[in-house]
């Protein structure tokens, strides 16, 4: 998928004026937050599990090479094949080669963020394959020709009316307006596709070294139909997805559904190991795993290593006031919200996504809900710092920050200027005590008044008042 993160500002403004989007976001926001809160309140071990999950993931990252090797050996022992991809282009090539070799025409897909990350759909379609997204949300946005706007609810930005329009165009009339009918229509449209599919592609929430298995969770069952009915099953997953044992995967599963959809567990958790054995009646003839690096080993080396703990639950975006206001598309690439604002610059380059780390109030809600305790605001701050160091920050802002540092490190000068400013602003504010227009800060005062200071600084008052007591 092409990156458009450099258009963040105009896209964010457009999103704020998009009434359908605002309607859809209003509905979604509170649902996710409230449902998660109920689940967390019901599990007294939740906090302890977060801490344990963080520790476990750090252990895996410390020994990632060994667990990957063990995982690979177990996949091969079960009759599957493992492919390694350094970057997105290599991952696409591997998958295209498999599709060509097995003479594939139709490819069904369960939801996979890695496949979005590597731009797989476009590559498959360009190669003449029919690609069918089977997750209802993904199916909707595929019909709309859009990218997902949320990592677990890809069509969260669409209203029911918009889905009705899309389905009417794709399936023909009569126009359906009830949610039950819309879900049925998608079910019917996709049914045959599962059975026709030559290749089924899914993600992998976890890869289990103990057994050489891939594990997916879904509510719809689409991922299972995809991977059971196609002749060939291909799993795409980042290298950080490996865990040592089934028991270790369980620790994360207890956090994942609760944090993601606010469920105790998703409806289906499936552990797949190798291709169909001779006696079995169903399952794919071939089983492949594509392990994708695409910037992850680079992340592992530096100060952003903690980001690799992410289990892609989406809680950070559900609790983010900025995401809640503008939705996911403004972020301009595959991963939106707080986790996306960290990942996008790291994978696509600091300058390709300048605005993302800056579009954050550092309110900290994301870090407080993250099931693996990723300090997202710290990482965002760190990215701003890197941008400054690499001179990616716009010149005006760099000068302003430089001037600020000059002041902030000289308390005497700082306080003198502060006293001056307080008096000047009080004078501008006049009787009303409000400033309607401030030269140099028009963008701010256009939408609201600035309350004027009362003429003396906090420090001045503190000193006099303490002096009195």
């Amino acid at each position: 998928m092409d990156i458009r993160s450099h258009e963040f500002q105009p896209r964010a403004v457009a999103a704020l004026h998009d009434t359908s989007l605002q309607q859809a976001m209003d509905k979604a926001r509170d649902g996710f937050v409230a449902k998660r809160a109920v689940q967390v309140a019901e599990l007294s071990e939740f906090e302890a599990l977060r801490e344990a999950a963080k520790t476990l993931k750090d252990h895996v990252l410390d020994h990632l090479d060994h667990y990957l090797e063990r995982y690979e050996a177990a996949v091969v022992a079960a009759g599957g094949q493992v492919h390694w991809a350094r970057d997105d282009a290599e991952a696409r090539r591997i998958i295209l080669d498999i599709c060509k070799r097995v003479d594939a025409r139709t490819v069904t897909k369960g939801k996979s963020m890695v496949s979005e990350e590597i731009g797989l759909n476009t590559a498959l379609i360009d190669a003449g394959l029919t690609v069918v997204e089977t997750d209802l949300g993904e199916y909707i946005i595929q019909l709309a020709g859009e990218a997902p706007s949320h990592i677990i609810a890809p069509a969260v930005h669409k209203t029911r009316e918009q889905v009705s329009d899309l389905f009417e165009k794709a399936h023909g009339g009569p126009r359906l307006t009830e949610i039950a009918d819309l879900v049925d229509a998608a079910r019917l449209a996709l049914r045959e596709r599962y059975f026709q599919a030559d290749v089924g592609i899914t993600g992998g929430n976890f890869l289990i070294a103990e057994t050489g298995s891939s594990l997916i969770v879904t509510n719809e069952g689409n991922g299972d139909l995809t991977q059971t009915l196609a002749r060939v099953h291909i799993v795409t997953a980042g290298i950080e997805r490996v865990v040592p044992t089934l028991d270790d995967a369980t620790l994360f599963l207890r956090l994942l559904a609760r944090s993601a959809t606010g469920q105790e567990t998703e409806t289906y958790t499936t552990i797949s190991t190798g291709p169909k054995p001779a006696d079995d009646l169903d399952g794919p003839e071939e089983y492949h795993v594509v392990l994708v690096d695409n910037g992850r080993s680079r992340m592992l080396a530096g100060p952003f290593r903690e980001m690799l703990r992410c289990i892609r639950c989406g809680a950070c975006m559900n609790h983010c006031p900025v995401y809640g206001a503008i939705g996911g598309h403004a972020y301009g690439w595959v991963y939106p919200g707080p986790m996306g604002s960290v990942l996008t610059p790291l994978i696509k380059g600091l300058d390709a996504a300048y605005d993302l780390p800056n579009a954050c109030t550092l309110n900290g809600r994301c870090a407080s809900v993250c099931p693996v305790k990723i300090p997202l605001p710290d990482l965002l701050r760190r990215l701003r710092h890197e941008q400054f160091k690499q001179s990616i920050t716009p010149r005006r802002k760099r000068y302003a920050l430089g001037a600020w540092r000059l002041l902030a490190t000289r308390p005497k000068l700082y306080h003198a200027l502060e006293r001056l400013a307080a008096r000047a602003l009080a004078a501008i504010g006049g009787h009303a005590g409000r400033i309607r227009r401030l030269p140099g800060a028009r963008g701010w005062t256009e939408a609201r008044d600035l309350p004027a200071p009362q003429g003396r600084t906090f420090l001045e008052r503190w000193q006099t008042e303490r002096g009195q007591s």
Partner: protein
Amino acid sequence: MSTAREDILDAVRRAAGREPLDSATRATLDARIAKPVRHLRPAFDEDLIARFIRKLESRSGTVARVAGRAQIPAAVETFRSAHSLAPRAAVGAGLKDLDWPADWIIHHQRAGIEETLSVSPAFAAIAETGTLMLLASPESPTTHNFVPDNQVVVLETARILRHFEDAWAALRERTGGMPRAVNLVSGPSRTADIEQTIQLGAHGPRRLHVVLVD
């Protein structure tokens, strides 16, 4: 030219600031795989059977209890006629020996696109979340769990375990290694992808019915 595999593993090692792990560390990590670490598990004192039923029903599954194996076909027949389904079913070969009604059309193959009802045996269940565990095999094909509109699962009460970890232990004890698919099923298929409204029967079964055998 180095392979992608070598490059990635090298990069991972460089990131950790070290060479490949020494054999002592490898042995420790392998031991950790052979004998999984015991993690914190949600504590509860509820009776396992009661909890399994309560949790499954909370996600729109239904449960019928019968006294013995011989009563299974009658329980399935009750479910079938309650929903006016055709007397046709894909029955897992693990339940072949039962006395199915003579006027039913049954087969023991995978579920095809027209299948409306399947009946298969569960390997175990997990009380913690009210979850069924089915293993892919000729006795219980995976398509039975996802293709038909109506999924009936037969479960013996003795097979209801406490936590997921107990189910993994049972899986490891079984001969023949990992089955191709382990399906953990916690209700009928559902989606909330349109306006966050929960709708059953997204792609998989619209109904999930458990026949619980004492």
